[in-house]
């Protein structure tokens, strides 16, 4: 146990009441082999169903998907989604879900676990706040693709709009084509792989995380700097891109890596000078 005897204790900085912040919970770290959340539905991938969403509302589509999961269906195909907004959202379950067609905005948001395949295009903010699983789009995607994503693989085989992965907090965003301006804006962690070109201000104000680009970068945003590729990253990139049959035209070994310069980290050090300016 490290010593907690710091100058800060003399200054009285650690006198706050901590009760309620620490909990003691008991679980078996060696015996349990539960791989799904206690509240998730038991589904079988071999049990497949499909339905036509041509005349259904977004709510009806989402409720139908939930109903099928409750019945143990593990593979669902939705035909004719007709670019409706906000479908395939809030799925906290293992599931194979396929949309035959395109989705509107906020499709497949807030998901935790499913593997989703969209054969068409998607509107803006696809897979916003995604926690885990895979979402694969065969064609193009709109702006703020993977906004605030926290985990999982989000794949667009075509081009995407601006602000891809804005506020990204984890996970991997893979883009087969080009990405627009301000991609990786305020990125905090996670990885973004762009096989094609990247627009202006790539990685602007990024706090952490890594961006890999195969094509040309129009310019870098504030505090985004080139990084050095490691062997383990090359292995990881090869495996990850291989999973989705993707490869940049320049070859994986020639991809460029960008990281945070971390000059924005210690803003608390600016406090004294800011105070002087105020005075």
């Amino acid at each position, binding site marked *: 146990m490290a010593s907690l005897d710091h100058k800060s204790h003399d200054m009285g900085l650690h006198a706050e009441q901590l009760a309620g912040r620490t909990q003691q919970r008991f679980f078996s770290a060696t015996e349990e082999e539960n791989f799904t959340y206690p509240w998730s539905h038991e589904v079988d*991938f071999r049990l497949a169903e499909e339905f036509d969403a041509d005349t259904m509302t977004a709510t009806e589509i989402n409720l139908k998907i939930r109903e099928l999961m409750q019945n143990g269906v593990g593979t669902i195909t939705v035909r004719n989604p007709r670019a409706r907004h906000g479908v395939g959202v809030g799925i906290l379950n293992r599931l194979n879900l396929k949309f035959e067609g395109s989705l509107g905005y906020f499709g497949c948001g807030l998901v935790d676990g499913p593997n989703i395949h969209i054969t068409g295009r998607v509107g803006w903010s696809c897979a916003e706040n995604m*926690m885990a*699983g895979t979402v694969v789009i065969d064609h193009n995607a709109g702006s703020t693709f993977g906004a605030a994503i926290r985990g999982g693989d989000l794949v667009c085989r075509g081009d995407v709009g601006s602000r891809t992965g804005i506020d990204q907090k984890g996970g991997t965003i893979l883009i087969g084509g080009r990405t627009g301006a301000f991609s990786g804006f305020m990125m905090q962690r996670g990885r973004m792989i762009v096989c094609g070109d990247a627009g202006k201000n790539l990685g602007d104000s990024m706090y952490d995380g890594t961006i890999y680009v195969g094509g040309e970068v129009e310019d870098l945003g504030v505090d985004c700097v080139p990084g050095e590729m490691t062997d383990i990253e090359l292995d990881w990139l090869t495996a990850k891109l291989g999973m989705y049959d993707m490869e940049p035209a320049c070859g994986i070994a020639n991809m460029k890596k960008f990281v945070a310069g971390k000059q924005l980290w210690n803003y608390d050090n600016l406090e004294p000078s800011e105070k002087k300016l105020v005075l």
Partner: protein
Amino acid sequence: MNDINKYLETDGLDTDREKDIGQHIGYRYDVNLVPDMSRCTDFLRKYMDVMGWSDLNWLEDVHMGYEEGNAAVFDRNINGWVTVPDDIDLPDNQQDRDMIARELLIKFQMSSSHPMVDLMNAYRKF
């Protein structure tokens, strides 16, 4: 990080600013470290198989961290640290430690004792 036990054996405070406030600034591990799948455990491979994934998926962002001088893993679902039990021997490299952290986090999150179970029972709408 050169010394893997730095945050277990020392206070880990390097800069003057950190010493003043008594807290470490930034992460206590390399958040950008990608997993070495040759070190993946059987338990994690089973989990990947159940979920239908070819790699660690969201667990790629899970690393072993250090909190209050103890090895710990951050659980995003409770926004808190889960301490690694004392009886688990820590390997001498971060990759193997990360695999242990991933296993532990799965076991905790999928346990009926997880705080999310209480929250779901109290607040879930459907």
